[in-house]
């Protein structure tokens, strides 16, 4: 299998995760909760894959998310690219085989992303306590979920690539 084929499979798995998250939010809405897992969708591209291929896939994920959210056009596209950049920047400090580093980077990225969206999309609610109450609940729950899932998710994708004949751990980090 070619590298493009392997990357397409990784992209499709991320796409599946994106739909599962949507389904999870249908259930979570019964309790007025929303899980944001944007960092999970971007972390593998930002930390393990090379720049040229991963940036295109992240931009595609951003366009997908943009089309279904009623945010101003391009919010998720730009947001996912900056989130990817955040993980690329993190490569200077973290060790890819250390699960605490991966989990912390994912949780920090997710929390930062929600805070940025909360400030950008507040529109007159900035001073309302209830607004920040809601944002804080979503932030804590989403960050916790991302913290718990980021390492198993990256491990799963690495193993998948390994099965497809690409040992990503043997490659040097591009940092």
């Amino acid at each position, binding site marked *: 299998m070619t590298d493009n084929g392997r990357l397409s499979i990784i992209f499709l798995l991320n796409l599946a995760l994106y739909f599962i998250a949507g*389904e999870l939010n249908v259930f979570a809405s019964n309790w007025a909760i929303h899980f944001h897992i944007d960092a999970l969708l971007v972390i593998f591209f930002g930390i393990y894959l090379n720049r040229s291929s991963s940036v295109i896939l992240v931009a595609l994920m951003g366009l997908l998310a943009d*089309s279904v959210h009623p945010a101003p056009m391009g919010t998720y596209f730009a947001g996912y690219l900056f989130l*990817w950049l955040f993980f690329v920047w993190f490569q200077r400090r973290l060790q890819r085989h250390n699960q605490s580093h991966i989990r912390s980077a994912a949780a920090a990225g997710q929390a930062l992303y929600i805070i940025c969206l*909360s400030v950008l*999309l507040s529109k007159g609610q900035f001073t309302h306590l209830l607004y920040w109450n809601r944002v804080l*609940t979503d932030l804590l729950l989403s960050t916790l979920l991302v913290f718990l899932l980021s390492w198993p998710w990256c491990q799963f994708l690495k193993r998948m690539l390994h099965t497809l004949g690409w040992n990503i751990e043997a490659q040097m980090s*591009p940092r």
Partner: protein
Amino acid sequence: MPRNLSYQAKSLLLVLLLLLAWWFTPVLFKRWTSVAFQEFQAPTWTALSYLRDLRSYWSTRSHSKSDLIEAGVDMARLNAAYALRNQQSDHLETEIRRLEDFFNMPSYTEHRYEVARVIRRDLTAWWQSLVIRKGMNYGIAPGQAVVFSGGIVGRVTSVGAYTATVELISSPKFRSAAHFEGDNRPVEFRGGNNPSLKAASGFVATVPADIKVELKAPKRLTSSRLGGTFPDGLTLGWVYHMDASPDGLFQSGKVMLDPRLKSVREVAVLVPLESRDEEDLQ
């Protein structure tokens, strides 16, 4: 690109380049991309909702026969009550037509109910929306009202080929004209900030000072046809308390919305029918 740039700096330049390209892309192309990506996802969301229905079907099948018989008896009673109400409704309809002809009045806009399943719910701090399993293929258009057994759900904001997005009345961006039950003076309703783990709420403003509400005697806030979207008299929510404005002319307060709003599974879109005058002309 200079060779001495680090991997991270090159990545930053790449992102800036992509954002610049996005910035200069014509809006028409961006809009087309958005629609294309939305339509690309729609079949998957629809398939997932069918899977949910299937799971619900199998869980319902596990009910015992006595449960089903009991439910059947309840349904028969409800059917009888609705049949009686239909007769009254027909009679009132005839009376309205007679009065309209008599006074030469324009008729109200009539609607047909397009029932649709909910396939996605996005209830965040920034927006509260639903995606339903019917779109242009059923004549649904942006701006149409969406209702359920508890009253108003919201209004259609965008329509795809087979799906439509509905902005809920609990969404912070939602605005509508309303009035209290038994009082025709218009008031302003808007969606509120909705904390987690609690029922949704809204906000009512410009309420005349003589309208009194108490905790023990709350007032029902209903939709108004003034906005042109909703028919009169459908429930928006209940108001338990209001505060007077500093000048004492108006009041404002919190509107408690139906708690089923955040778990609604099926809604009806009010698709306007051609008015009777137009029908007569044809």
